């Protein structure tokens, strides 16, 4: 079931679930996943996915902030 393509779809889904719309199964098929993989994607708990995606986004924002602080710190020589 797991393939690099399946993980690539999951990574995109976790990073930005809204861009996939309501029909996750259809999106998975259009992405090139197998019917079995698309079926599994179609069964994801949407509410849990939304909470997880918001958490992932907060973490990415936190990392970007930390990277900016790190660059400034190094430029200042601290």
């Amino acid at each position, binding site marked *: 079931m*797991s393939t690099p393509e399946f993980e690539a779809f*999951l990574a995109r889904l976790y990073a930005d679930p809204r861009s996939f719309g309501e029909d996750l199964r259809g999106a998975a098929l259009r992405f090139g996943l197998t019917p079995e993989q698309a079926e599994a994607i179609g069964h994801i*708990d949407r509410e849990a996915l939304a909470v997880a995606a918001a958490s992932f986004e907060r973490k*990415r924002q936190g990392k970007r902030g930390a990277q900016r602080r790190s660059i400034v710190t190094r430029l200042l020589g601290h």
Partner: protein
Amino acid sequence: MPQEVPNDRFGIGWRPDLAAAILRNLDRIDVLEVIADDYFGAPSRIVKSLASLSAEHPVVLHAVGMGMASTIRTGRSWFNHMARLVDRVKPESWSEHLAFVRAGGVEIGRLAAPPRNANSLEGTLANLEAATRATGMRPAMENIATLVDPPGSSMTEAEWLSRVALDSGGPLLLDLHNVHANAVNCGFDAMTFLRQVPLERVSTIHLSGGRWIGTRILDDHLHDVPDPVYDMLRFVAGRAPRPLTVLLERDGKYPPIEHLLAQLDRARQAVMKGRREHAGI
């Protein structure tokens, strides 16, 4: 009185905001866990300061960005970074998460639970072998928290985690708050989970706290360790034969250090009780 837990140790995650307070209280902290990724590519003087710390006090390294639980091979540069850090800092051990963090050119930004099946198991074991070869140390692998029950899974989390531990022969870092959160989020019993995983492979335990979002728990490391996690710690201590390194993780909203040390003391008590119960004392 005989000492029931001569080799169990209790430590805390090294964070810049806590550094000064930690250094003032090293007599109450047996081990420091340092985030390895923070030192990948860091200036030499920064790594040197970590090496000095490691020479004075037990240090373990904890990686977060390798994404080894994947059908995709972890980039060699990650292992090279860790190998250089291990060589310079000489930690007692290092660890990573059983997570994937990127795929298809997309960075997820947080640890994501992989689909639990034979393919991901095979990929994880291959990555573990490569990591071990590169660094000369077999990493302890940590179970992660997830809000989403990963699609495409043919194994339960306990089955998959057990296979990773037993097939790799490596140690487990068991994060008890992650077990607690997943039990709530994915609807299983935490104690049953603990009975199903090979506790004989557990070398390290993570403790932390999270927050409720509706009916789910987010493992954000910003809150105190909740009561059920101490109960789980006691349970594990009664059954895990190895000496345990128990580490408290806190990633923000830092309370006074005494508050964190009190949680470490409570962890000591829980382990002591578990060990005593097992010994029939």
